[in-house]
């Protein structure tokens, strides 16, 4: 899966002097929507490029990315998809560890 969209967005953000938060799937266990290396880049205005797995846990990771942009700390986020969170029968039933970091030129 080519990631050039994410790298392009990162590059052009840096050209403008803007920081970004990058979320990368570090590890997966069981059945997860995306595999290791999948990426989502989040800009300061909350817009993002790329996906780490659609609805399954993405909102949570997006929030962590926004927090990382704020405080600058890198963090590992564990998203557990084995429990139905809102009564919906989600098809993904695994655990993902996602590395979230703030990057700036």
């Amino acid at each position, binding site marked *: 899966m*080519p*990631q050039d969209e994410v*790298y392009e967005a*990162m*590059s052009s953000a840096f050209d403008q002097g803007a920081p970004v938060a990058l979320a990368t799937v570090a590890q997966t266990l069981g059945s997860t929507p995306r595999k290791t290396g999948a990426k989502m880049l989040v800009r300061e205005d909350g817009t993002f490029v790329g996906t780490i797995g659609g609805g399954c846990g993405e909102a949570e990771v997006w929030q962590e990315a926004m927090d990382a942009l704020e405080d600058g700390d890198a963090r590992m986020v564990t998203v557990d998809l084995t429990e139905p969170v809102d009564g919906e029968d989600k098809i993904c039933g695994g655990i993902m560890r996602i*590395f979230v970091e703030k990057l700036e030129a």
Partner: protein
Amino acid sequence: MANPAEIARALLVAAREGPAVASCTVMGATDGVEVALGAKMLVYEDRNLGEIGGGPLEAAVTDFGRRAIPKHLVQTCAFTPDGELVEGRRAIEAADAIVEILVEVVEPAATLLVVGGGHVGLAVGQLGAMLGMEVAIIDDREDYANEDRFPYEANVICGDFGEELERFPITANTYIVLVSRGHKVDELALRSVAERGAGYVGMIGSKRRTRTVLQHLAEEGIEPQVLDKVFTPIGLDIGAETPEEIAVSVLGEIILVRRGGGAQPMSEHGRMLASIRR
């Protein structure tokens, strides 16, 4: 020391044009180990950009990254701070100190070169495009090599097979599928591409036909090691009948070559475990 902007630009170049690079990021460490979370080093075949703290760890990660490139690897690995690779969950849990490194090979999309724009070529190209490959299709018949015929993004080339293939750039990231209208053309095409270091060369045909083609090329002096690497008859044995099913079988084989795997139903693993536990 490379700054993040330099690294980002280098990653973009790697993803767009190549050459491939193994991007190595420090993602975590056990308490007490001094590392810079998020430190990133790009390992090329012949040099590095950036650093992850030097010492034996950096040397080990460099070595690992270099070997990851031809395998298209994307994997989080555990090392000791002294640079020893720790494999397996139990060993990782038992280790005193671990540094987690994400190693991901960044490279341009693979090229799928389809020789022959017939029914099978059409389906193979479609599935390749769906998998994110850059698809090129060559045929010498205008009815088969025209943009209208392919409802997906493809570089459609109409021309003499020999000339067009000679001109076509082939790298280890090129996957070649020979599915032309007849074994004569397939033979000509195979002669042209066999020795050019493609990541995969597969040729359609019955066992008898394909053996004849290989024999001809062996007699012409193409090395047996080269011919041994040709996947022919093409595809995984899944009982494919229709062009679309054959495409699944062929792309299945290409994924197998690219990623490695057992090419067995996943459930077989479960059954094996069950029989061991019994």
